[in-house]
């Protein structure tokens, strides 16, 4: 574990060992529930979660990297640790996810600032080390940019759907991708979120602490707001329509297209016997093979793995995507026509 200074713990509180930190400062959780002065911190923690649930980033008391007042530092860390306690007591996963993401974005800001810090070499080194230790991405400084191996870049960038993150839209030299400090940090946002999320999930859930009940109850109410309902139009997306068209005309649909069509329809609940006749017109149709392959995809034969419909990204690469405006930035054909209510 990286040795952290005072300012660093406030910036990256998830790196601290929560229990140890409280002990070092001479506090127990029970005190926060009873001591009127400390109880304010529960409200602060609650606010921190509320801001996160709203999709915003918690505004801390840190000014320009430094703690505004000597006393603010423990408060800053306590509110984070108490927020985790509240989340554990409440047990709502949607809130934990939102909180982890917001905290990741908060830490991202500091990481970025530390990376671009020209006056303080040690801050930059810490940021580079955090990125390397937590996410095994080896960042190196080259002129005004940070460079990382293409293979490391790809492992993270494939989680982005924006086109500017595609490798083709990056500057590459000698097997390295060139990134700004902002991009370097943005690249690991999801992993940072996952890291914080898993730290919360893996933390022990304490028994209810007197004085915490109100905030926990309020959180439980809050999380209900995020339950979503979806309705579907039932219409097929253009890629699927196209594939069916091709087959109906008796033209050849490539293997990848057949895979897409079959997995899509299977996911929509159709049976192998319902799907098989679609392929009758294919130039190389063979009933026995078609049934064998469909059963394989459905997981009813072979390894038992149920194959899922490929993502839009993959279909684009395979020239099977015929997106229309109705697709509305979905990332998998199965989402087509689904409206959140």
């Amino acid at each position, binding site marked *: 574990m990286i040795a952290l200074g005072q300012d660093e713990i406030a910036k990256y509180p998830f790196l601290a060992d929560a229990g140890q930190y409280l002990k070092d400062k001479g506090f127990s959780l029970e005190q926060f529930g009873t001591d009127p002065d400390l109880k304010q911190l529960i409200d602060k923690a609650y606010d921190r979660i509320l801001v996160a649930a709203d999709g915003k980033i918690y505004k801390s008391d840190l000014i320009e990297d430094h703690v505004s007042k000597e006393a603010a530092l423990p408060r800053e860390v306590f509110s984070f640790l108490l927020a985790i306690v509240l989340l554990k007591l409440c047990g709502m996963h949607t809130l934990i996810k939102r909180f982890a993401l917001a905290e990741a974005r908060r830490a991202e800001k500091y990481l970025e600032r530390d990376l671009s810090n020209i006056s303080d070499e040690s801050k930059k080194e810490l940021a580079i080390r955090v990125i390397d230790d937590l996410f095994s991405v080896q960042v190196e400084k080259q002129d005004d940019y940070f460079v990382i191996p*293409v293979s490391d870049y790809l492992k993270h960038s494939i989680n982005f759907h924006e086109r500017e993150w*595609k490798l*083709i*839209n990056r500057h590459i030299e*000698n097997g390295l991708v060139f990134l700004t400090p902002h991009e370097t940090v943005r690249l690991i946002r999801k992993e940072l979120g996952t890291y914080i999320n898993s730290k919360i999930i893996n933390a022990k859930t304490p028994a209810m602490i007197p004085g915490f009940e109100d905030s926990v109850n309020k959180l439980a109410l809050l999380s209900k707001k995020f339950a979503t309902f979806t309705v579907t139009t039932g219409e097929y997306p253009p890629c699927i329509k196209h594939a069916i068209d091709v087959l109906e005309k008796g033209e050849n649909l490539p293997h990848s297209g057949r895979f897409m069509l079959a997995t899509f329809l299977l996911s929509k609940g159709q049976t192998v016997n319902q799907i098989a006749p679609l392929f009758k017109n294919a130039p190389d149709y063979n009933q026995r093979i078609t049934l064998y392959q469909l059963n394989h995809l459905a997981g009813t034969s072979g390894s038992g793995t149920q194959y899922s419909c490929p993502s839009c990204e*993959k279909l684009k*690469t395979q020239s099977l995507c015929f997106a229309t405006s109705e697709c509305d930035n979905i990332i998998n054909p199965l989402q087509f026509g689904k409206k959140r209510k």
Partner: protein
Amino acid sequence: MQESDIKFLEESFKKYYFEHFDLIRVPERTSEREFGYQKFNSGMTRHIQIKDDKELHLLFMQNVPSDVYCSNAYYSFPNLPMNEKDWKEADLIFDIDAKDLNLLCRESHTISICNECNEISKKLKQCRKCNSTKLEKKSLPCKNCIDSSKDEVFKLFKILVDDFAINKENIHVYFSGNEGFHVYVYNSQFQQIGSRERSELSDYIMLRGAIPETFGMKKFKPNRSSFPDFDDKGWKGRFSKYMYGTKSKRSKIISELLVNGYSSFQKTLDNVSENIGVKIDPNVTMDIHRIFRLPGSINSKSGLTKILCKDISKFDPYNEASFLSDDTIEILANSPLEFKLKNKKFGPYNNEKVTVPIFAAVYMICKKLARIA
């Protein structure tokens, strides 16, 4: 395929494997690979583990396969079912196939075999005899096909070396045995990346999914200074050379691009991608569990050998990949197209009995354009 044809092909293949086993390149870390094979008129047998070349030799002699395959992936347990194999890593592979290059010559050397009535003709849309649309197409690739595929290999090679810093010695190019080339990359930083990462790598190599901003065209307030230069590294430099032609035209072309605007630039990019993107088959590169034709084995689509190209610019598959016997045999040939093998011309044949060398007989039978008389 009829019994007598299969018997003939098996005998010819067996003789080849007996005499030319030295051409078979047993891949490194043999026992970590998955092998598979097919016999004529039969399905695939895969999930086979092989210890060394002796065991491989035995497989050839015992089974007389029509095709033999080997994984680019390394597994802890190559003989177990797919999800128990424990995938470790995989060499990076690219497939360049003449049929994917949209070449104009294509139609002139492709014929169709009707699935219903077996009629062979140069008509490609519908059977001329029974009007069925269920046609199997066979192509006898020409010099233009091979040369155009080679151009793609050169383009790919340059990107691998220049952009990805891959050591030239770690890139091996093989003639696929039919219509294209397989490019293997060993020991690169990409050994351990998964399927989605490889798909991204393919898009890069094919120049797909680029946005105008990448080549200097901004959506708002575009300006001249952000456009790429002739000597830029990577796609920016290649884009410049293609778009500007010469350094002196740079300024004029940029003015045109700016006048035409952002959305027109996106169309220009699609066109550029079609012209200078490398035409690899992305499905092959992103598949990390595939088994590939084993180098040195015969491709049953042609009877030619998948062979390492030491000097690809001079490589002539119709001379250097045909290793079968010069002895002659009588066949019933029905090939509307003529072709050249080992510097000899054959065909066209109109359903006639001819006596030809075994290498040519195998070629035609594999292409379903002849049978044993």
